[in-house]
């Protein structure tokens, strides 16, 4: 603490945000392991396929990150994904022309669900865990009440392009559109989190009062986080629906999987700590892990057990493992 500040901010090193290091290390190990386990991973196409598969979860992780880092939970994303796919199928009903207005409508629906979650959380002071749990039940029921029990209609080819198809790039081969979309969202998320609003969102998770007294619109920003989470679920639904078509089970269990992913990325439940890149890396790590286990022919049961051990270990490492580190730093 004898050093004074560097003269400008321009010389700052590229610094890994807190908690990003471990997850990236694990991810690297998994990717290398994948290369050994499956011949397909010896070339870019294999990794692109992995990214394509991971894209929906990674996008959900971005949305969930906003909510978690500002101190909340969003348990409604899984059923929101299902609802969006079912809504899309019913509204499009195989009509190519409908795609153009249905996609904005889906995004708006996601935003609306997020808005409701956010408003109830911030205005009615209901813990977000409960709000989004209630929303999970409501969405689960409402969408099938509307369609009479099972999905109806069909998705158009145009709707499915983003989730399913790709474009040719020299050297890389076919790059899926979803990977491109993912890349765009990653950039957008990183830019957002580096900007004022993003930093303020993290500060809310850390100390809400300081932001409030600092003139921040805490309620609005927290609501924004839920809206972004809702929109991310809509985008994930477009990708998942595009990837595999209509299904009534498409969002099952996604809410816990995405929270696992975000936590795996070192984002602290309760807010105020963690980076969006790490959250996405957590999602990719999880998907890479599933792919690896699958390639190794590990049975389904072991898969969830491994997932369980990993999240406990990751969080335990983050909270216990950091303590000696912390003391060293504070001297």
């Amino acid at each position: 603490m004898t050093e004074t500040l560097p003269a400008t901010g321009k010389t700052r090193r590229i610094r890994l945000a807190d908690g990003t290091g471990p997850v990236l290390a694990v991810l690297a190990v998994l990717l290398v392991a994948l290369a050994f386990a499956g011949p397909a991973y010896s070339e870019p196409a294999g990794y692109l396929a992995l990214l394509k598969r991971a894209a929906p979860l990674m996008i959900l992780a971005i949305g969930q990150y906003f909510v978690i880092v500002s101190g909340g939970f969003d348990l409604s994303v899984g059923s929101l994904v299902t609802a969006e796919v079912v809504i899309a199928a019913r509204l499009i009903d195989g009509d190519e022309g409908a795609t153009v207005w249905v996609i904005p409508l889906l995004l708006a629906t996601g935003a609306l669900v997020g808005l409701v979650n956010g408003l109830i959380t911030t205005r009615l002071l209901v813990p977000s865990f409960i709000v989004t749990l209630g929303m999970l039940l409501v969405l689960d029921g409402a969408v099938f009440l509307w369609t009479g029990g099972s999905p109806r209609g069909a998705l158009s080819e145009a709707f499915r392009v983003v989730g399913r198809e790709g474009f040719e790039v020299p050297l890389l081969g076919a790059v899926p559109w979803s990977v491109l979309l993912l890349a765009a969202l990653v950039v957008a998320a990183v830019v957002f989190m580096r900007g004022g609003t993003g930093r303020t969102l993290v500060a809310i998770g850390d100390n809400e009062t300081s932001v409030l007294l600092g003139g921040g619109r805490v309620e609005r920003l927290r609501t924004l986080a839920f809206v972004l989470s809702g929109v991310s679920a809509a985008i994930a639904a477009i990708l998942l629906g595009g990837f595999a078509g209509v299904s009534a089970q498409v969002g099952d269990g996604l809410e816990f999987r995405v929270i696992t992913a975000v936590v795996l990325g070192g984002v602290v439940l309760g807010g105020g700590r963690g980076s969006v890149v790490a959250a996405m890396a957590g999602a990719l790590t999880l998907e890479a892990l599933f792919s690896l286990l699958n390639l190794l022919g590990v049975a389904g049961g072991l898969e969830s057990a491994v997932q369980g051990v990993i999240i406990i270990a990751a969080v335990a490492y983050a909270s216990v493992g950091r303590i000696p580190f912390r003391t060293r730093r504070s001297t």
Partner: protein
Amino acid sequence: MVVTGLTDEAPVVRMRGIGKQFLGNAVLRDVDLDLHPGEVHALVGENGAGKSTLMKILAGVHRPDSGSVELGGSEATFGSPREAQAAGISIVHQEFNLLGDRTVAENVYLGREPVRRGQVDRRRMEADTAELLDGLGERGISPRTPVRRLAVAQRQVVEIVKALSTDARVLAMDEPTAALADHEVELLYGLVKRLRQRGIAILYVSHRLREVFDLSQRITVLKDGEPVTSTATAELTPDQLVRHMVGRPLDALFPDRAAESETGAVRLAVRGGGNARLAGIDLELRAGEIVGLAGLQGAGRSAVARAICGVDPFATGTLELEGRPVTIGSPRSAIRHGIAFVTEDRKGEGLALRQSVRDNALLVRRAAFGRARGLGALDLAALLRSVTLVARGPGQEVRYLSGGNQQKVVLAKWLAVEPRVLVVDEPTRGIDVGAKKAVYDLLRGLARGGVAILMISSELPELIGMSDRVLVMHEGRLAGELPAGPSEEAVMTLATGHTTVEAA
């Protein structure tokens, strides 16, 4: 250093040569302290002098690095507050250690519930609590009331009862009046006197000289972790005590006041401002001046600050900025009108501790202005230099900074939005002398730059030394205005509504 006891009884606590270091900084060096039964021993000193640390060593929260603690004549080292408690030493914390949803009795016996036939003996617990409350003359509090429903002073009583319920022989009280209104302090006086009569030894930590002289029989002054003097109260005058505490002429710390020519037009004016806690507030702040706002704790100083800054806005009256009436209903609107508010609770309200220096310094700018609308470009490095921040870099998390540097970050985040009115509430609480001086210089520099500053402080010398004018509050109203450099006595006269003030 130790003067002979006033009472002939042997001291119940003898602390000898106590030393303590935190992270290599010595906060206590070779401190001796005796506590006698039935005696109030005041421990005074500036913030950061080591009072709290010494008290926590007594209460078993910290272990001393050197020296010894004797209790009733035999060596005692306490590994935990529990052990100290068992030995008869209890502590009344400055911050309440109470559970709002539990009843008074449940709080008093928290962790030590009497058990009878396998279950908690509620009847006994409540009866004993009632008895303790009775013994202190507090009949207004029912042992069955949830603490949430009690007034702050009543909670303080509960804290004290909690401390007494362990059959304490020694009671350490840390700023027990900090949260109390003026008339509530009187209640506490009575309480302390009754405790004395029971033969309890009391270590009384306070920065309020009046209380010290009213209550104590002996005073120990700490300065920078070292004992300056330990004397019978009767042998000291307030003037002497202040000199012991400060150790040097206070004046040297404070920059020169504003010259007449430097004060400009009225920047902010409140007329007839009032809300639940305030009534009839009329005040003016001029560009370039520092106005001190004095008053006892609870007199409404912070309420004025919170009202001006939109946290708990005025419900009545008008507020004018540069002659134009404005409505300020939220911190956001205050900030957008150029009003900045350095709150007294740095950690709770000021900083996002796990975020970096940069993020904290930019917090207000980002939170209140979004894309920096209406603000010029910001040179963060220059800003941080201007507050003389010492940190590893803008990426360092603020929780790793010292209190003084944390306060500089708080100031920086407000300076980043170029305020025209700056309200500072206890700007030097809990920071060391060097940092204090830096804060003083910074505030004066800002005033020179044309900022109107309203400063609140419980430390009268500081307030007097810094202010170009002093406004004094009493029970939610402005009791009067004093010109630059008033005597403490003059301030206290207005603040207490009395004509005589014992403390300098």
